[in-house]
């Protein structure tokens, strides 16, 4: 497992960007939770709070023309890839200006303008899709990569193993990023997997694999960066087990997440808050000042407030949209 760096070999601009993006996701999710309580968001809402360093660290080493695809806890990945928070919030509100015109919702965010290939909510099913994206990149002779995020809950599924095998067999440029937050809904990893060191599954398929501290945005950035490099130049997949933790429950219907884990465990994990840790490190390294961070905070809060205002103001989709986008008409 990659160790935390003792010194920060990044510049102030990057520090600002990483911190600001993590704070944006955190604030966005807090506002989403609030909006859910107010009845503005329905259905299932899975918050990314606690896991921000994964999406932000990984996306920071991707190019805009690289692809990303995720499961249903994907607000963070969508925002990190560059989607407009206003349109993401409008999608959660089920409004016409949402990313997917209000047809996708929290679990199905797509943004073609930033090569974000969705939010997929059948556990494990988007892994073969990511393999297909890698297949297409190679077929077309491109040098992009596809970053695929999934939870450790997908690892017992057959499609995880099919996708690992196919990408290794065919040498496809996919970076598998397993967000191991230790609980698939209420089932702990110990109750789900005979091998809980997930990165080891990659070894079996001959895939470069390692585990990394998911609460350390720079460690994630470094490990994913190496994997992206391999994918881009050698067209080989990598499996990265990112050890993270969700501070909230599985979804808003499990707000505390208290039945299957202890309060002490949650409190202990919160001490590893990726935003608080990184904030402290950049302050200590003198990369940003308290005043800089206050400015970032204000900016992030303003952007999220603006997103909520935008979503509130956006009308519901017109009824005739019920039957549009079912089939693509002839060009």
């Amino acid at each position, binding site marked *: 497992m990659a160790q935390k760096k003792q010194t920060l070999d990044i510049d102030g601009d990057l520090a600002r960007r990483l911190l600001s993006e993590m704070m944006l996701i955190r604030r966005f999710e807090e506002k989403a939770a609030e909006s859910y309580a107010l009845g503005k968001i329905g259905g299932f809402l899975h918050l990314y709070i606690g896991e921000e360093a994964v999406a932000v660290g990984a996306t920071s080493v991707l190019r805009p023309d690289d692809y990303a695809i995720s499961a249903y806890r994907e607000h963070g990945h969508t925002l990190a890839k560059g989607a407009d928070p206003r349109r993401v919030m409008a999608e959660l509100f089920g409004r016409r200006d949402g990313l997917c015109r209000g047809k996708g919702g929290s679990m199905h965010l797509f943004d073609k303008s930033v090569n974000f290939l969705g939010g997929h909510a059948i556990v494990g*099913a988007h892994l073969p*899709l990511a393999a297909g994206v890698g297949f297409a990149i190679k077929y077309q002779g491109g040098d992009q990569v596809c970053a695929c995020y999934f939870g450790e809950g997908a690892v017992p599924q057959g499609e995880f193993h099919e996708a690992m095998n196919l990408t290794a067999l065919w040498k496809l440029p996919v970076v598998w990023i397993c967000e191991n937050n230790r609980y698939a809904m209420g089932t702990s990893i110990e109750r789900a997997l005979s091998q809980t060191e997930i990165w080891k599954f990659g070894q079996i398929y001959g895939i470069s694999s390692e585990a990394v501290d998911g609460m350390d945005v720079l460690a994630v950035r470094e490990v994913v960066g190496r994997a992206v490099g391999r994918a881009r130049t050698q067209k080989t997949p990598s499996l990265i087990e990112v050890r993270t933790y969700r501070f909230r429950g599985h979804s808003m219907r499990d707000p505390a997440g208290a039945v299957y884990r202890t309060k002490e465990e949650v409190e202990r994990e919160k001490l590893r808050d990726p935003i608080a840790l990184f904030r402290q490190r950049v302050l200590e390294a003198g990369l940003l000042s308290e005043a800089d961070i206050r400015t970032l905070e204000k900016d992030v809060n303003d952007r999220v407030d603006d997103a909520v205002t935008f979503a509130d103001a956006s009308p519901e989709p017109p009824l005739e949209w019920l039957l549009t986008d079912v089939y693509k008409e002839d060009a």
Partner: protein
Amino acid sequence: MAVITYREALNQALREEMRRDPRVFIIGEEVGLYDGAYKVTQGLLKEFGPKRVVDTPIAESGFTGVGVGSAMVGLRPVVEMMTFNFAMLALDQIVNSAAKMYYMSGGQYHVPIVIRGPGGPAHQLAAQHSQSMEVYFYHVPGLKVVRPSTPMDAKGLLKSAIRDDNPVIFIESETLYAVKGEVPEDPDFLIPLGQAAVRREGTDVTVIAYMGMMYRALEVADELAREGISVEIVDPRTLRPMDTGTIIGSVRKTHRAVVVEAGAGFAGMGSEIAAFITEHAFDDLDAPVERVTGANAPMPYARNLERAKTPSKEKIMAAVRRVCYTNGG
């Protein structure tokens, strides 16, 4: 027009579309080196190479997902199911990924994919390899479903399916691969999806049937013609979208309808067509719509039981006579 087999017609369609569009590739079990389990892809590896004729391990969900993912970012995959029964393992990729992507992404990502292979009753292949698979797919908004009965249809419809921007389920038949028929050689010959064919014109009763049942209905029509009953046979060819206009038009002319399907009857295609006719042409009907369907049982192995499982000529004939209120001559 050349006379070729249904299998050769499919092969021509694949070859022509792969020549026409470099984004088209074929992926599946034994499609390359083995030349296709049913030889539909024969010679394609030799012409197009392993980049575009991709042999896969046995992992239906995995390679179907690869097809869907590749289609999202610009390719046009043809996924072969060695038999459509194996598509059950990929049902989630077909239903939850391929069919819904365009809708749930609000029109951002479309999935131009064809999933093809043989399905339907075959010869003593028993319960897991011999069944009508279309029912699992035509229910799903976002999918198109094709069942081509003739070599000409096989070619013209497959070419249209490959050029279509939506996921198309294209189910062939082991029992028809050797059937011969006239097929145009023009590489731009297409049959649009969603157009039925009137296989035989008649005035007394409309029989709606496709694939093997369509051929059985033709035999029935020949025999009943000798009794003075004139049967019109409509082959839907595409089950979704269905050419309901041709079906209703025919029923308005004949005032009687019999729907034949090989699969188990409960909630089958016959139910849908019979309901549609009743809703839209009730006043034109001189008799209730009859359904002749496969038995509501899995496919048995024993030859006599297998024969009893799918609608016989006698059963179809009896249904036609019933709607014509005649006991036959």
